[in-house]
């Protein structure tokens, strides 16, 4: 079964793109958390919980927000038919380290709740009402072949009809979010959901 990329979004090098078009750019010297807040404000988003999120959740949440804008995905599919499959390299290590620092004086409950890598998925699901399959994999690098095969299997097994998938990774000021909206072949807007295509898009963000 052929799957297509309906839309893609990348956040890297203090730059946000959707489908190849630049939506926001900030000075490269700005720390990632400030950059994400600046982008949030620039897009005039209204979701106060955003400020309370850790860096990884801010990154993934914002990428999903940009990816899904105007895609009307929850109008076209039931909540249980939309899957979310993410991957990254550094798990929740960025927040784990920050939390560990607070334990030396007084442990922060607000940081503790983000010391799991899949919390970012919860934030995205809560925002968009997704109730379908979800999974997060920790890999050394972006595994386009695995991601492609896993999502393909989900759709073919009828576990989902659409899927948001990709890479959301953050450790200190090193970060990258590359998300794809995948649907059955009814759009062909951004090309086939193949390992080569998603690898090329992922690599283009580092250019």
């Amino acid at each position: 079964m052929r799957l297509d990329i309906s839309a893609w979004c990348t956040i890297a090098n203090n730059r946000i793109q959707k489908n190849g078009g630049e939506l926001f750019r900030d000075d490269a010297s700005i720390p990632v958390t400030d950059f994400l807040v600046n982008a949030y404000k620039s897009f005039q988003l209204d979701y106060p919980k955003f400020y309370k999120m850790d860096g990884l959740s801010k990154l993934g949440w914002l990428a999903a927000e940009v990816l899904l804008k105007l895609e009307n995905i929850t109008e076209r599919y039931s909540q249980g038919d939309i899957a979310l499959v993410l991957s990254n390299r550094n798990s929740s290590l960025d927040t784990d380290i920050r939390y560990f620092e607070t334990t030396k004086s007084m442990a922060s409950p607000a940081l503790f709740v983000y010391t799991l890598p899949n919390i970012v998925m919860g934030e995205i699901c809560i925002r968009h009402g997704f109730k379908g399959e979800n999974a997060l994999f920790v890999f050394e690098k972006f595994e386009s072949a695995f991601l492609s095969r896993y999502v393909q299997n989900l759709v073919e097994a009828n576990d989902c009809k659409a899927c948001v998938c990709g890479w959301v990774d953050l450790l200190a000021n090193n970060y990258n979010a590359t998300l794809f909206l995948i649907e059955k072949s009814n759009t062909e807007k951004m090309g086939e959901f193949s390992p080569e295509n998603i690898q090329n898009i992922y690599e283009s963000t580092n250019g």
Partner: protein
Amino acid sequence: MDKLIADLKEQIIAQLNLQHIKPEDIGDDQPLFVEGLGLDSIDALELIVLLQQQYNIKLNNADDGPKVFRSVKTMAEYITQHQATGK
């Protein structure tokens, strides 16, 4: 008391990452939870940490929480009372 209330508003914003709110947006008597500032259970824990870190006050009885954390003013009253009695 006014200085303490002003300090508390600044500290609550910093501790709870409420960057979208300014101190003047928080009313002295405004409920902190549910219909007021909309704080949640994790925020409640952070307020307990704030009391301990900033004012060296431990909330020993969890049942006191809703009363103490009802508003910035009730927090200030609790701190003042605590500091006066030295408990």
